[in-house]
Structures are given as C-alpha cells and as structure tokens.
C-alpha cells in the first residue's frame, strides 16, 4: 500500500529540505563581493573562451550526433531477438542478418558520402541529413535554442 512509499517520501522531503536549507543559509551568511574572475564559469581551470557572435559549433557535431542516434536506436531490435534467441533458432538469425545488412547499407552510404569525415571540408554530396545542412560554407552553425 501507500505505506510502502513512506521511506521514499521521507527521503525526498529530507533531500529537498537539505538542498534548500544549505543554499539559503549560505546565501544569508556569506559575504557577497563578486569580481569578474569569480563570476566566470568554471571550466577545469581553462580560460573560458567565447567566439564572436554567439557560440559556434562545427555542424559536424550535429551530423555525428544524428548518425549516432539512428545507429544507436537500431540496436533496440537486438534486445527482443536476444530474449528469444534460442527458440527463434536459424530463422531468427537469418532475419537479424537481413536487418543488420540493411543497417550496414545505411552505414556504407554515410561513409561514402563523407558523413564520417571529420577534418576536410564537407563534400558537396550530403550525408543522411538534408542536403544543405552540409554545404561547404556551412561548416559551422550558431547553436539553435
């Protein structure tokens, strides 16, 4: 019943209380003398560098992230197959081979179209993204958000 959740509720309450209390108390007690260095974000001791006109990332990051998502999520079908691996037998193996072959086609396409090349200017021919996302003049984008 609900009583089973009581320890969780207690823990949650304590956690919230502790967080609020420690932030509130330190805000009340501490001296407040901001300087430029203090306000800078902590980046492992490296001077935070900002590029002009907002933050720019090579568009390659997006392409690689998208490719990662698509290949990552394809493996989801391996899990149900693995659960019934023995019972499915040769039929399951053949089906999975077909599936992986199709994923491999996508991989070969991305590879051949330059979607995985990191350094040299992106070629005119696009990867899995819509064409213009990879045009040479567009190797950087301003972060959308």
């Amino acid at each position, binding site marked *: 019943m609900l009583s089973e959740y009581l320890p969780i509720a207690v823990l949650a309450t304590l956690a919230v209380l502790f967080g609020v209390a420690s932030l509130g108390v330190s805000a009340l007690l501490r001296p407040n003398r901001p300087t430029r260095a203090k306000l800078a974000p902590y980046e492992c001791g490296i001077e935070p560098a900002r590029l002009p006109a907002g933050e720019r990332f090579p568009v390659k990051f997006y392409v690689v992230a998208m490719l990662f998502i698509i290949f990552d999520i394809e493996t989801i079908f391996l899990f149900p197959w693995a659960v019934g691996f023995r019972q*499915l037998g040769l039929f399951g193996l053949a089906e999975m081979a077909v599936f992986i072959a199709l994923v491999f086609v996508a991989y070969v396409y991305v590879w051949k179209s330059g979607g995985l090349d990191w350094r040299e200017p992106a070629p005119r*021919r696009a990867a899995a993204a*819509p064409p213009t996302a990879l045009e040479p003049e567009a190797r950087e984008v301003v972060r959308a958000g």
Partner: protein
Amino acid sequence: MLAQFLIHPPIQLGPIGPELVLTGTAIVVLLGAAFNPRIGHSTLLLVSLLGLAGAALVSIGLWDWGGELTVLAGMVATDRFAVVARLILLGIAAMGLVYGYHYFRRSGEARAEFYPLVLFATAGMTLIAAAADLILVFLALEILSLSLYVLTGISARLSSVEGSMKYFLLGAFSSAFFLYGVAMAYGATGSTRLSAIAHALAGQTGSLGLALAAVAFLGIGFGFKVAAVPFHMWTPDVYQGAPTPVTAFMAAGTKVAAFAALIRVLETSFQPLTLDWTPLVWTIAAVTVVAGSLIAIAQTDIKRMLAYSSIAHAGFVLIALTAAGQDGISAALFYLLAYALMVLGAFGVVMLVSARGEGRTSLASYAGLYRRSRLLAGLLTLFLLSLAGIPPTAGFIAKVNVFRAAVAAGHWPLVLVGVLASVVAAFFYIRVMVLMYMQEPQDDAEPDRSPWPRVAVAVPAVLTLLFGVFPGIVLGVLDKAAILRW
C-alpha cells in the same frame, strides 16, 4: 506470453513483392550514386523507372492471388484493392521522377538523393495501401512522411527550407495523434490487426469508449495526411514551398495512399461502428469542400490555389466514403485516379511555365499564356476543366460517381453542399482560363520549351480525356477492386 511470438508465421513474401522491388531499387540507386558521385542522373532515372516497372509487374501478378487473405501474421492484405492502389501510386511516382529529373537538371540543383527518396516514399505509399495491421499502417505512413519531409526541403531555396520545417512539425504532430489512436484501438480490443479489431467490436467484447476515441484520434491523423479541413493548415505552405515536381508527386501520392489506408481502416476494422463514424466523415467532408473552394478564390499564386483545390478534392473523396460499401469504395478509387491525373498534369504545366526553378507561379504570369504556348495553355485548360468537374473529362465522371454513391446511401444534403462547392470552385478555375486566353502577356518571359517534359505532361492529359469519354475501361477493374478482403 512470449511463446506466441516465438512461433514465427509462414513467410510469404509474394504479397510484399512490389515493396521489396522498390526498396531494393532504392538501395541500389543510393549506393550506386554514393560509390560513383559522377554517375549520370539519366542512369539513375532509368534504373529508378525500371524499378517502378518491376514493382508494377509484380503488383499485376498479385491480381489473381489465390492464397490467404492476409499474409505475414495478418500484416499484409492480398486483395485487389491493394493491387489497384499500388498501380496508381507507381504511375504517380514515375511521373514525379520524370518531372524531377528535368526540373532539377534545369534549375542546377540536381541531387542523386532525389531518386532513392522518391522510391522510398513510394514504397511507403504502396505498403500503406496493403497494410492490414495498424502497426504496418503507422510504419508505412512514417516511411512516406519522412521521405517527403526531406524531399520538400531538397532545394536550397528559402521557401523550400521553410516549407519542409512546417511540414515536418505538423506532420510529426499528426503522427503522434495517429499513434495514440492506434494505442486506443489496441487498448479497446487487444489487437492491432484490422480483422481482429473488427471481430472484437462486432462481438462487443471491446471497450466502446476507447474504440470511439481511437476513431477520433486516427481520424485526426488521417485528416492531416489527406489535408481535410480543419487539419489542412500545412497544405498551401508546403505545396507552395516544395519544388514543383515534389509538390506534384506529394499532392497526388500522399492523397491516394492516405485515402487507401483510411478506406481500409474505416471499412474493415471500424466497420461495426459505421453508424458512429459516418456523421463525423459527413461533417468533415462538408466543411472541407466548402472551405477549400472558398479560400481558393482568394489566392494569387497558382501553387497555393491548386493546394486549396486539392483540399476541396479531399472533401469530395470523403463524400464517397460516407457511402460505405462497394459503391463508395469504387467511386473513391475512380476519384483518386482522376485526381492524381489532373493534379500531376496541372503541376507539370506549372513547372514548365516557371521555366527554371520556381518563380513565375503568380496567377498574373499566366496572363496571355495562350500567345506564348498554345500547347501549355491547352493542357492547363484541360486539367482545370477536369478539376472543375466539367465534361468530357475524368473529373466530371469522378464527381458524378461520387455524388451517385452518396445519394444512394441517402446523403443527399451532403451532395447538395458538394454541388454548390463545385460551382464556386469552377469560378477560380475559369478565372485562370480567362487570364490565359483573354489577356495580354505582361512580360516576355518564355516558358520551358524542352520537348520530353511536354510529352510527359501530355500523358495525364490523354488519360484524363480517355477516362472522361470512356470511363468504362477502368470502372470495371475498379469495381472488381472495390471489395476489401480481410
């Protein structure tokens, strides 16, 4: 619980042969272009067209399928309805490819990805026409939608990019509604198979409330895809923004595919609820024909005008759906065939008048087209007459059939609304004709005079006339195809 899934169904790949051929061709074209970037696009076009032809042959081979009603664990239907819908869709795809080859070569935006994307979209469209399980309907809908989002944005023009974003956002929104409807149908009946849903609902073992919610959500999802009011907002923007050949392919293909799936879902799985969904379809059909025809009058861009006209035409097909049964399905199929022909033709002429890329799509640039090119003016006149439903064109026969089926089912008030909307719609089609014949050209821009695309545009024109004068040659086939077997 797990055991039922571990007994795999007998594998009969025949009934999905057309899709296998299409995806196989798409992969070959995709990899061919990736390994050899300098490959000529005429080669890609040729291989793609061969793939379409192969798929068409396999489809025709399924006409006399003597095996089970559904194969692959009830996923795929093997009836003649699927065969006919596939053949119409394959024809649309062939026209789209030919237009696209010419258009992108001329506008200097040729991309090898165009061909596989069209083939993938076509595979989704043909698969949806044969889908006998809501899972497969959803997957096929996504295959065609995702390909079309990218195709819409394949050009670097700003309006193309913007159109693809709008299409994507609203398309994904509608997909979510569709999927929720699938979940509701599953919750109501415990199955996603169309026949099992029908049995559960007929035996009243399912939950009626959930089933009605499923009809509503699926209706919203389909409403977006077929562009029925009030789910039509994306249509004009996307039709205007997309490159014209993509618009032609999308306008004809999506409508045929989505209506094929809608017909199958309503007439099989939700057939026990016919009395519940008919008023819904009735209302949407009435609103759609009226709103589509009225808003089209105010348009100044021909692509937007054709987009609103396509919305109105979706309403006419919905009128056919209110007449359940073989008559309604046969009328809807003929309407879809006629609609596909005239919309492919009309956008083909728009592409040729634009000459290069987009531009010159405002109605004003059609002034005096007759002086420039009698052929294009004549072709466009024919397609506009057909869209308006004036004899001797296929559009006329299609409207008559739809109205006859609806009257036979007792929906004469709806038919009255439809007839009045047709009269309103005739106004803006005839306005374009007046512009073409009676006014002087405003500038001296030349339309595209390449010979082959003109031949391509003439194909739907000939068929529009042929089906308008001798509708019997296809009506017999469509009547045979109008029986859903499940």
